[in-house]
């Protein structure tokens, strides 16, 4: 056939197109967001060096300050812990939007237990237990009784949102608890004196626990059979079931782990300050929901979730600095920047690879 070579060429180019297209679909938006962020930061730092007195100067000062990193880390702890918990639950096929509630209940319980026992770490454990119990309730309702996961998740949030300040009111006569002892920070000599990165070496123990949890979660998903079962349970539970692994048990385990992790985040949040404040949205103030955004942006990867948490927390730390500096923009506007960025990020990333069976109940046949 005379036109065979032309056919070949056509198809080859088409193959390349198809490949690059799927490549674009998979990576570009996420890479683009990351790239733009890095470029903007570099541009800002350069501008700040050239014009120290301008707005760019103020901003780059804020960005490079050790305090900014320190407060960003502090802020990421509850968000990133909750995000890790959310990853476990959702990868197994259970969407846990009750993370906010888990944070609230553990933040309060940690303070209460610390207050009555006098031990900060006992308080921490108390927070974790409380959050795990609430997660267990969520698991029974959604896995055992097959309730709608979104509604049950909202219920978890609302229960905690009502229960924690109420308990505080009953016990302490105010939605805010009295102050208890806080955790001491761990300081590595010499390294802690480094500019900027020094903040990494003089931080609360919860920061180091977070690092360990991020690595641990990554390891579980990438290297252990249990992590693989969690993935299979969220992607194609039937495949897991026919392979002889109980989907129900895997999902219970995953949701309980999400309770433990969110509990660590909540306890760390309140024990860092030594107090639980229960007014309005409580001291948790949407961190559980930001956590959901963080793990979606991190595409269910624990490390990705950690870095997207840091992006948000970094922005929040910078906006706090800017509020104090007074740069002529109304505070209220500055305060919302992290949230605006989150919305933009989500809109840009759009296509997150949701686990195929997330949100669906699984019934074993016969």
């Amino acid at each position: 056939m005379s036109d065979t070579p032309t056919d070949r060429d056509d198809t080859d180019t088409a193959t390349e197109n198809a490949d690059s297209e799927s490549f674009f679909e998979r990576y570009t938006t996420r890479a683009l967001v990351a790239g733009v962020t890095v470029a903007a930061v570099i541009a800002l730092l350069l501008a700040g060096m050239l014009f120290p007195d301008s707005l760019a100067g103020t901003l780059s000062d804020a960005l490079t300050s050790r305090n900014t990193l320190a407060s960003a880390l502090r802020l990421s702890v509850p968000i990133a812990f909750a995000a890790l918990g959310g990853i476990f639950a959702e990868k197994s096929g259970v969407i846990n939007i009750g993370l906010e509630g888990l944070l609230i209940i553990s933040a309060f319980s940690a303070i209460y237990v610390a207050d009555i026992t006098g031990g900060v770490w006992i308080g921490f454990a108390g927070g974790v237990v409380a959050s795990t119990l609430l997660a267990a309730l969520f698991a029974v309702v959604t896995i055992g009784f097959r309730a709608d996961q979104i509604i049950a998740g909202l219920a978890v949030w609302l229960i905690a949102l009502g229960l924690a300040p109420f308990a505080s009111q009953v016990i302490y006569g105010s939605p805010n608890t009295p102050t208890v002892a806080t955790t001491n920070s761990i300081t590595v000599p010499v390294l802690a004196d480094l500019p900027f990165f020094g903040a990494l070496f003089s931080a609360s123990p919860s920061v180091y626990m977070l690092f360990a949890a991020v690595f641990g979660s990554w390891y579980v998903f990438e290297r252990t059979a249990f992590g693989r079962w969690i993935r299979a349970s969220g992607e194609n539970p039937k495949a897991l079931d026919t392979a002889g692994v109980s989907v129900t048990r895997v999902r219970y385990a995953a949701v309980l782990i999400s309770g433990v992790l969110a509990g660590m985040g909540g306890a760390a949040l309140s024990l860092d300050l030594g107090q639980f404040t229960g007014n309005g949205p409580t001291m948790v103030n949407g961190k559980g929901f930001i956590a959901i955004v963080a793990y979606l942006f991190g595409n269910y990867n624990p490390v990705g979730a950690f870095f997207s948490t840091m992006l948000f927390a970094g922005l929040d730390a910078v906006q706090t600095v800017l509020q104090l500096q007074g740069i002529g923009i109304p505070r209220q506007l500055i305060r919302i920047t992290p949230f605006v960025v989150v919305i933009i990020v989500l809109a840009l990333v759009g296509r997150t690879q949701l686990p195929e069976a997330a949100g669906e109940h699984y019934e074993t046949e016969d």
Partner: protein
Amino acid sequence: MATAVHLDGITKRFPGVVANDDVDLEVERGTVHALLGENGAGKTTLMNVLYGLYEPTSGEVRLGGEPHVFGSPRDAIDAGIGMIHQHFMLVDPMTVTENITLGNEPRKWGGIAIDRTEAREAVVELADRYGFDIDPDARIEDVSVGEQQRVEILKALYRGADTLILDEPTAVLTPQEVDELFDVLDELTDQGKTIIFITHKLGEAMRAADEISVLRDGKKVGTVDADATTQEELAELMVGREVLLDVDHGTAETGAVVAAVSDVVVENDRGVRAVNDVSFEVRGGEVFGIAGVDGNGQSELVEAVTGLRNPDAGEIRFGGEDVTTASRRQRIDAGMAYVPEDRQERGLVMEFDLVENGLLGSQHGDELVSNGRIDWSKTRGHAEAIIDEYDVRPPDADSDAESLSGGNQQKFIVGREFERDPELVVASHPTRGVDVGSIEFIHERLLELRQQGVAILLVSSKLEEVQGLSDRLAVVYEGEFIDVVDPDETTEEELGLLMAGERPGDDDGEGGTKATGSESADETERDKPADPTDAADGERA
């Protein structure tokens, strides 16, 4: 030879139904045994009993002479039975190795971590032993359906299966992949594995199996030697009466042009031209067939005609009007019926019952709806009429579409569309996955419509079907009509060559085969052999 599997008087009752009635089955070790029967004959139920998914009401399962009672698939797996379901049980984003070892991962470091090297080696070793060509690191979502099936087989072998049950394994495969599967089955039986192969396709049962057992209405009606039987005999056993495998389509008066497609170009979802400058006309009282290997633009063309996809160039006229950009609703109102190729995706709402599904497409008409309100009693009557006329089983209008078997879903859709009183029927693979008795019935109804002067556009990858039914037959290859032929004047071999992209008058056979062999971008499974025996569904005598 020893008996590997022995089912003794298996009866399985469900409330109100006897799915298996005193079935005896003996399968020799190292052979392929086909379990043949129409949809709903009880083949899958019987195998689910063997696989431990169902406990039999009475009867006994013996493996190698030993009686076994299976409480769950886990027990069956431990006893060396593996089942490859029609819908694969694979986790798409995971790799081949991860899927094969799922649930039985080799461990290291005291069981904490997966030993990934060992897992990979085990898979490679297993694949080599049975001559499977498979990339252990590829993700399931990136490999073809045929490879996914081989992964399923490997998964069963990895778990130590000696007896493999394959449920309708060819339903999702291209003809070439079917060949490959049969090679794999040969290799497996050579190495002493036993295969039970569930199918409703006579030709495949004869090609692949050593022995064939036929089930009808839950009873075993016979076991025959595959070499000593004919398709006619099998068909009769299956259906319980004589079946006409060859359709005599007679002649009908052709009327005016009902639909005309001119110079139509359609791009697929990836922006690749799937249909390239195609023109044809369909007249009343005529079946215009489109033959071709799946993925050569048939789907896109049908979508353009039915209004599901806008053509990028060209014109489509229907009943004298330009409908190129007309909506689906306008086309339905104008009398265009459509039997979609994917019945579960486009033909039915799986969670709806048959009453509601029967309404679909008529919700804007005035027959079942008055003043914007659905007349449910009429709608129910409509659905029941379809069920009755088209022999949909079980005959219960309240059952959900998803509870029906594939063949019965298809009969219901065909019934709904044919009863619309259409001017034009666009039938895309109308008998895909349908048993032999129903195929005959659907073909008869199509020809009846033709006799009434309805225009029919028939797309099918079953060569026998398009050739037998069409008055004129177009062969499509890479989005273009290679030729339009008179099917009665053309041999299957000639059609096969056309389907492989060899233009008429081009006598260089080599070139044609080469062109088919080249990878195409938008459809990796497109390259199929030119051999017409593969393209046809194998239901030929």
